[in-house]
């Protein structure tokens, strides 16, 4: 038995007062952060509020910040949360309003599932089979990890985009949308991909920061799901967006020179087509780049950019060959799905 200090971020809704309070708890080997919070609540201060239920890391109630990172408190051992002697800081989830102490208002988070219509839409006018739909093991294995979301909100709490944008669908809802896009029983694959790429706050607003992958207590890999949605959305032809243009511009630069072409990328992201057809917002976006360009000019960086560094000649030749080969191979196999498959396999197997 050892003593452990907990510093808890508290909020009293009656006085609207936020404060930190320190508690010392006797901890046994194997004791979790949730056990410790309960010890505080039951033995020291019954006013401390937090959500909990299953204590099996499956109901998703008790996600909170432990030393700044969102995690399930029931799943987190005291020993792993703190170096011996260091206090453990416990606070409410981020990116949501605090109701009381460690309880946050989860409405905004949960509403995103409704918004993304993350439920199965059966095929209209077509009776389901008498028994089950058949699904190949490989098909199921490709998306089933994304169906393990427990809606705990840890990903949303740590999401760097949700932190600045209320309108972002967020990692969990996007991963769940992915799960239905991938499920052959669903009838709305195209509609979903269109919505997710065109909606403000959809797949192209993710920064790829990996916060959600890190925070997720399950193996959902939300960011990977968002990335695969991007690939599928482009493949399905939903390309009239900045994200796709940015991808295409970036990739074509690498194809030509083996390296990123910073000179051309802004124009390609805005869209050469849009600029040529006199799209006003496209021209405005181009104008937005001007002050940045002037600053780069002043700091003598623009010249370097304009030199358009590339791979050496032998390298460029090989790189172009690879681009052509992969393009051909894509006609025969869904190589991109295989790439994601390899990622899930190593990511989940490696845990």
């Amino acid at each position, binding site marked *: 038995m050892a003593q452990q200090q907990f510093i808890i971020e508290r909020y*009293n809704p009656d006085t609207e007062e936020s404060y930190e309070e320190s508690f010392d708890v006797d901890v046994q080997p194997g004791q979790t952060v949730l056990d410790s919070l309960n010890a505080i609540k039951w033995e020291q201060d*019954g006013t401390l509020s937090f*959500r909990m239920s*299953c204590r099996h890391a499956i109901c998703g109630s008790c996600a909170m910040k432990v030393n700044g990172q969102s995690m399930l408190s029931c799943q987190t051992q005291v020993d792993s949360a703190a170096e011996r002697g260091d206090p453990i800081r416990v606070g409410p989830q981020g990116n949501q309003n605090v109701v009381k102490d460690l309880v946050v208002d989860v409405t905004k988070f949960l509403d995103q599932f409704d918004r993304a219509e993350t439920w199965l839409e059966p095929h209209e006018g077509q009776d389901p089979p008498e028994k089950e739909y058949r699904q190949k093991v490989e098909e199921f294995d490709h998306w*089933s990890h994304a169906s393990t979301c427990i809606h705990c909100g840890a990903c949303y709490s740590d999401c760097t985009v949700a932190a600045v944008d209320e309108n972002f669908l967020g990692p969990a809802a996007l991963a769940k949308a992915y799960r239905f896009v991938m499920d052959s029983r669903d009838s709305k694959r195209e509609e979903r991909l269109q919505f997710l790429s065109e909606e403000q706050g959809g797949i192209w607003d993710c920064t790829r920061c990996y916060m959600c992958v890190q925070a997720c207590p399950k*193996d959902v890999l939300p960011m990977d799901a968002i990335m695969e949605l991007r690939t599928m959305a482009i493949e399905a032809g939903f390309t009239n967006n900045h994200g796709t243009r940015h991808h295409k511009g970036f990739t074509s630069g690498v194809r030509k020179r083996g390296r990123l072409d910073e000179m051309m990328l802004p124009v390609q992201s805005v869209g050469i087509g849009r600029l040529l057809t006199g799209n006003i917002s496209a021209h405005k976006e181009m104008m937005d780049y001007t002050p940045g360009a002037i600053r780069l000019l002043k700091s003598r960086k623009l010249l370097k950019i304009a030199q358009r560094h590339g791979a050496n000649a032998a390298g460029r030749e090989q790189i172009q060959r690879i681009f052509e080969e992969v393009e051909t191979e894509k006609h025969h196999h869904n190589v991109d799905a295989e790439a994601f498959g390899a990622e899930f396999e190593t990511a989940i197997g490696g845990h």
Partner: protein
Amino acid sequence: MLQHDVLIVGSGLAGMRAALEVSNDPTLDVAILTKVHPLRSHSGAAQGGIAASLGNSAEDSWDLHMFDTVKGGDYLVDQDAAEVLTREGPENIFELEHMGCAFSRDDEGRVAQRRFGGHTAPRACYAADRTGHAVLTVLFEQLLRRGVKVYSEWYALDLVVKDNVCQGLVAYDILSGQIEAISAKAVMFGTGGYGRAFRVTTNAFASTGDGVVMAYRAGIPLEDMEFVQFHPTGLQGSGILLSEAARGEGAHIVNSDGFRFMENYAPGRMELAPRDIVARAEQSEIEAGRGVTALRDSVFMDLRPIGEDRIRYALPSVLHLARDFAGIDPLDAPVPIQPTAHYSMGGIPCDINGQVRIKDLDGAPEVTGFFAAGEASCVSVHGANRLGTNSLLEAVVFGRRAGRGILDVVHDLEPTNIAEGDMADAVGEVDKFLRADGPEKVGQIRAELRDTLMDKCGVFRDDAQLRECLGEVKEYQERFQRVAIDDHGSTFNTDLLDAIELGHMLEYSEVIVTGALARQESRGGHARRDFPTRDDDNWFRHTLAYRPRDGEDGPRLTYSDVNMTPQYREPFPLQERTY
């Protein structure tokens, strides 16, 4: 006063499945009320599977499933209910599959099935080892699609029944602290089990038997409450569940000699005997000094015979739970396990349509407008012991049937009304705790109660211990009158809810112990050292316990017959239960 045609309390599998069914009638206004968000419901913690005789892995039939269920329940199973469960099982699974449930697949692309304790065929349909989560999720998704109203984080305080007609509910909005009456022509309880009264349990903090006690307080007797299932593979100490799927996949259980002791208890089934039998075997080994670890209070479950790849693929949760909660990697070492209170066979008496009935009275009169399904109910499909994977199936099958049962009658039911006076009990209860000033603490009494029930009304029971146990429970009830809480606020006051829940635990614990004391036989999950055999002459009957009226010392017990009239086949006759 809030008003709905149908109000479903509890948002696990039974509640949500019922709500979906009721929502098929667009003219009806249906709502769900739940103290935790639906996705937090404890159904989601079920791991290993949901039974149905699909026959995808080996030949199977509903008859065989029914026989396994009846025998598994030590013949206290109502056979009309077991028949419904098993006959309607497959179509319910297909329905879930059509809704998008993430079932694991076999090589043919069908729903995969594995072996489970007490089942003679591999009939556990599964989603890795998170089957409850997969089913719970898909039901919630479909509710969202239908736009069913959910009162999330509302706590039901009181069921209002007048002249045997259910009027509705008094409930507490946890966020605001407001108490509201909600009237409904039909109320269904899918409020879950009552395992929290035991120290070592798999149950969620929420599994405090709230619905069971509300019905009891409304004058409805509780059925077979003494039957509590102890699951054989709880993590040592915490009692956290390691799925029976581990044994289904081939895990061994060994004692301190490294011996697979099930050889001595159920040689025909070994580790895949029903849970009550494995749990008793473990407890016997532990009490004989063949326990493991320094505490010698557990035995080992060894997953290594399954093989690493299959463990990772089929049992990821078991792997993570052992690592995260016990610091043991099952790929490298055996895991210490012990019996853990898991499932409540008893509950609110109802028929196969979810209609709550007073079964001991002539003609088993109904409580009009009141329905129940799932673990809160006692239909009784599990009898004295539930087989693994039958609980999810029960919740879905009887949730759907209760939904249909409601649809059948609700249009003919009169609108109900809850008067100010009907709220008095609920308002008074909340008020009492908010004002209470006494020396006793909720946490302390609760800890003592859980110790008492675990140690004196656990895997094995006897007269002397049960009498002690009952005395202690009454003492806690008395001390509870002097309990005080710290939090007097109105926003998210979980201190208050803890107190109310402890009140429920104290009340139903008395019923469990009283029923156990009276039942002088051993049957399924109820094992008396002083009456070690089943006694069909005297005890082939269900217990019904009424709340004591003024002047009565404890619950009044009556009994009712076990149903032996299945519709589509002959009943299975009583037989000795060996495996």
